[in-house]
């Protein structure tokens, strides 16, 4: 079964999903993770981050695991992992196609 039916993930979507692969996270932790992981190349504004979290929740790619005051933590779901894996495969194919073209393949 496909993890996500709504086409490829955008770059911020991809990194937000990636941030949950190891552990549960809250919003600010996700922003820090993405900043660190991409060495500042991708930064998430609060509007972007919380809109994506709400969207992923609606699509059942992540689930809320706890609320502490206004701080909410989330974890990735099985469907979310599948969606991430599909996107990773797609990107891998894109890179391989690009590399083989450069090599004259």
């Amino acid at each position, binding site marked *: 079964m496909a993890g996500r039916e709504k086409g490829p993930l955008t770059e*911020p979507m991809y990194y937000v999903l990636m941030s949950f692969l190891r552990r549960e996270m809250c919003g600010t932790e996700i922003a820090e993770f993405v900043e660190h992981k991409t060495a500042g190349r*991708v*930064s*998430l504004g609060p509007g972007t981050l919380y809109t994506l979290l709400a*969207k992923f929740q609606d699509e059942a790619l992540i689930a809320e695991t706890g609320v502490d005051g*206004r701080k909410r933590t989330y974890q990735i779901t099985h469907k979310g992992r599948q969606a991430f894996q599909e996107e990773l495969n797609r990107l891998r194919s894109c890179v391989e196609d690009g590399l083989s073209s450069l090599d004259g393949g």
Partner: protein
Amino acid sequence: MTVKKPVPCSLYDIQGIQEWLDEMALQGLFLEEFTRQKDRAVFRTGDPKPLRYRLDPVGKSKNKDKDREEPYAQMGWKFVDWIPQWYYIFSSDNPEAPELYTDPQSLSVSMDHMIRRKIKTYISISLLWFFLIALLIFISSHSFLLNLLLWGYPQDLFYMILLPIITVIAALILAVNIRRILKIRNTLAQGLPLKAKKRWNRPLMLVIWLPIYILLLVVPRLILPSSRWETFSPENAALSHQWPTIAQLEAVAPSPLEQEPEADGYVRVNTSPFAPVQEFTYYHPLRVPQYPTDFSTTIHYIQASSPKTARWIYQLTLEERADQLKQWQKPTYVSHITDLDPFAPQSWPGLDRLEVASFRAGGQRGWTFAALRGQDILLVSYRTLSRWEDCLPLFLEALDREIIPQSTSIN
């Protein structure tokens, strides 16, 4: 100190509003709030400084939206105000803080709820408005069609025609707005940044809307008369026909009058291009001993431009009068009637149609007949002891003798 300024862009122009607010901050004007009408913004004055203002589309739940304030603040964005049904406004004085939306696609996603709600609202408003207009047209269709033919109340006619036209235009404007907002979302979904639209000059808007207002609401009132009915005293009104007098009508009653009573009354004339109307009401205010109440006669004569128009007007007039008779049965009505025997068709030589209704008013018998003959429509109401069968020939005789009227208005 606060300053109020008109918003120079449409609320659909996200980039335009953001840029404008940023510019205001550089001039020392810091947004406090938007007015309820959403057309002006209130600014607090202070020392000019660079400040970024960003709009965050309103989401599905107000509570969930509220929960965002704290994490937004942690990331450098402070809540300023909100424009109901549209956006939350955040500002940041930290140049290091990332943009509120760092990619156009996420802003496009964020707009989804707002767009869905707007479309739902626009469609609901349009349906409700169309329903109300349809109801209004249904309720007033008789008087509207009569007005259209008799041209009695031009202003009412103008607004009845204008209302559906405005409704269609308003629906088109809503459709354009929906298209506009969908276009914005699609632009963002493609990853393209928004561009600010050209700002408008508020006085220019006044230059557009004020003339439209004047053209639609003021000019018609100045040009079109509210009523084209002219009123004359019976002496000054030269009627097209010499209608039977009270004495002539009572001559066929069981107790004929010995002499013509002093009658008072008035004549109303409407020179409609399709069907000129004459309405002659006369009454005798002093009681005659053998009658329990005063006489009251109304002769409503319409000469239509063609027999076909006459048939149409006849039917509409008949239905309107039938409704009136029903209304007059209410005890609260000043001269209410009882024992109503509603309009029933009758046959009469030489008449295309004849309908008669009878009633009692003020303890006295009365009747109304509606007669159609070629282009002529005659509607007579009379409170009398005479029978309508005896009076009708007198009216038909009068109808055969047309005279050229020349009236002097008493208006």
